[in-house]
Structure formats: C-alpha cells, structure tokens
C-alpha cells in the first residue's frame, strides 16, 4: 500500500511538473511576444485565451484522447494510456492559462518600461528580455496558477491515462476511484498528500516571487 501511494505520488509530481514546465516554455515566450505587439486580432486572441481558461478538462481530455487514439492523427505515437499522453493532455489545459496571464501582464505593463528600454538602445530581443525581467513577479503568478490547475486536474488525465494500476494512476484519479469504492479514509489521506505537495511547491514559488519584487 505504502509503495503504491509513493508510486502514485511520484507519478503525479512528474506529470504535473513536466506539463507545467512545458506549458511555461511554450506560454511565457509566446505571451511576452504577443503582449509586446500591437496587432489587429489581439483582442480576439485574448478573448479566446480567456475562454480557454475555463476549458473543461474532460473536454480537453476527450480531444486529446481522439488525437492520440489509434485512428486519430497522432495515434501512431502510441501515447494513449501512458504518462506521456497525460502530460500532453495537461499541457493542453495549462498552456492557455500561462500564455494568457503572461500576455496580459506584459500588455498592461507600464508603457514607460518598454519605452525606456528602447530609448536606451535595446533591440527587439533585448526588449523582450528586459520586459521578461521586469514582469517576473506576474509571470511567476501565471506559472503558479498553471501548476495549481495541473495538480488539481482529474478529468483529462483520467480519460487519456486510463487510470491503469501501476502505470497511469495519479493522486487525483485515485481519489476518484477510492470514493467510488467507499474508501474514504484512503481518499482523504491522498488528498492530504496532494495539499502537502501544493503547499511545498507554492511556498517555493512564493519565495522565488518575493525575490523578484522590488
């Protein structure tokens, strides 16, 4: 039992950390770039991203399931019912959140920051780096919200992972099956572990965020 819990906990951490990391690597650079540029469809894109904040994980899971299933366009990759497939599903759920918040933080950043960097001779790349540095606290908030979504997510990983014992069981999906089997004590114990993970990760991110503030 203890070994099971350890395995489920480690897989949960691995899936959440990987998906948050990948979503950050996609969402932050794209969010900075889109936040810095004035373009015609920016409002439309922002509204689309805001809509995706509320993307039901079961719907995301279903879409990824169809993509990865044998007859789907990415079926050949063999990712369905694997931890990698679960990471893929969570990236779909988390990326719009990190991208959207980063874009908003950069777009609403004081205009003078961007102008000062340009007036001091920064090129486009140096401007992006400067904005990234100045907006670090806001961007860390985006990552924290993204991680929160990933660690608490159940629908997408359930559908794409299949909750296969010893292979794709994570804390949230195990809690669901525990409840269905009236194993309330076990479910609560896993819930406490989930909260403890969130507490440790958030305290680390918060300390990092404090260091970025003036």
């Amino acid at each position: 039992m203890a070994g099971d819990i350890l395995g489920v906990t480690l897989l949960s951490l691995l899936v959440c950390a990987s998906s948050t990391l990948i979503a950050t690597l996609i969402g932050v650079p794209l969010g900075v770039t889109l936040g810095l540029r004035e373009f015609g469809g920016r409002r439309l894109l922002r509204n689309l991203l805001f809509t995706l904040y509320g993307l039901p994980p079961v719907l995301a899971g279903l879409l990824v399931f169809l993509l990865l299933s044998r007859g789907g366009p990415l079926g050949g990759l063999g990712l369905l019912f694997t931890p990698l497939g679960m990471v893929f599903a969570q990236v779909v759920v988390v990326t719009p959140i990190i991208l959207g918040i980063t874009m908003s933080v950069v777009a609403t950043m004081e205009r003078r920051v961007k102008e000062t960097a340009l007036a001091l001779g920064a090129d486009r790349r140096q401007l992006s780096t400067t904005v990234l540095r100045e907006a670090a606290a806001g961007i860390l908030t985006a990552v924290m919200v993204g991680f929160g979504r990933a660690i608490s997510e159940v629908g997408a990983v359930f559908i794409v992972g299949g909750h296969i014992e010893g292979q794709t069981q994570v804390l949230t999906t195990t809690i669901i099956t525990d409840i269905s089997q009236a194993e309330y004590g076990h479910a609560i114990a896993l819930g406490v572990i989930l909260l403890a993970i969130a507490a440790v990760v958030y305290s680390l991110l918060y300390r990092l965020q404090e260091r970025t503030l003036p």
Partner: protein
Amino acid sequence: MTLEFAGISKAFDGREVLRGVDLRVEAGEVFALVGPSGVGKTTLLRCASFLLRPDGGVVRFGGREAPDEPGAALALRRRIGFVAQNPCLFRGTASYNVSFGLCVRGVEGRELEERTDEALESVGLRHLANAHGSKLSAGEAQRVAFARAIVVRPEVLLLDEFTANLDPANVAQLEAAVTAYHRRSRATVLIVTHNLFQAKRVATRAGFLFDGRIVETGGVEGFFTNPRDGRTKAFVRGEMPY
C-alpha cells in the same frame, strides 16, 4: 550631429498637437525649447527619440533621415540619448540601471564597471551604486536616469522637462552635469522645458513652441530680452500668450 525637424505634424484622436514644426538644432549646441504646457514640446521630443512616429514631416540627424532598415535604425537610435520627465528605473540597483545601455551595446568587464562608476560619479551618486532604484529619492532617481543616458556617450541628448518637480539642489546638480557632459562631448543637446530660468542658464539658443508651431528662435540673450513675436514676449514676461 545636427538635429532637424522638417514639417513635423502629429495628431492624437483628431486633435492636432504639432502642425508642421520646422526647427534646426546645430551640431554641438545646447538648444532650449520653451512653451506652455500642452503645446507639443514632449511630443516633438518623442518624435526625435523614435518613441513616436510623426504623422507628417521628417526628423533628420546629421542631415539624413532615419533609415528604414532595422539594423541601421538601431545603430542611429543608439547615438541618441533621452531623459524623460518622470524617470522609469528598472528593478535593480542604481548601478544596474546605469550600465543597462552599455550592456545592450555589448560593453562588458572592466570597461563596463569603469564607465558605470564614472557616470554615477558625474551625478554625485557613486556612493549609491548598490542602492535599489525603488529606494532612491525623486532627485536621485532622476540623476540615475541622466547618468544612464550619458554613459553611452550620445551624440544627441534629448532632455524632457528633466528637472521638473525637483528641489533646487538637485536642479543645480543636474544642470551642472548637463553642462559638464556638453563641454566634454560637444554633443547636440535639446532641452524641453517651461522653466525659462533654466533655459537661460543652460542653453545657447532657444525657441518658442506654441500652438503646434515654432514661433521664433534666437540666441538666448536676444530671445529673452528682446523677443520679436508678441506671443514670445508675453510668455517670457510670465503671461499666457493666448
């Protein structure tokens, strides 16, 4: 390097702020552009610092228009220094802020340190090199912003109401820093101000911007003691020229 505005016009939300400004600032001179608040002085300066694109007309540096090619445009932009009325310091120390322009130009190592220290020294702030920008007073922050602009040795220095709202001691220190930099570099300096005393103290020539146009320009002595235009006369007497 000469700085020339030819027929510059700019409107915001249908309101014309600049209506065909023609002005030439000679290489190596200190020119003060004066005028009441809201006549477009800052807008004109922002056009020269590439922060704003004019609706009409051209800005020429050394007789040439700004190139369209990004690399050449950046190279020209890096020869211009700009200090805004309300400085925006980046997160980090005074030293980090001052070294920013050098870093983006690829200066590093000992040269970076020496030039940063030298610029901070020129505004009397070397002792605050490691102080965080957010902990500085308004006057100290503006002095850091000035040091940050001159550390890259710009050939054209644009100063937008750079001592507004500062106490006399900080004003004196910044004006002395402008004079010292000009003497050392022979840079072309354009100061936008509504402080006539400052214009007299620092500039060699002055111009009056009113209603989106240059009304008159001249040597500082004549401009302030015997202006030709009635509106300039009223302004230098401390009256509204309307």
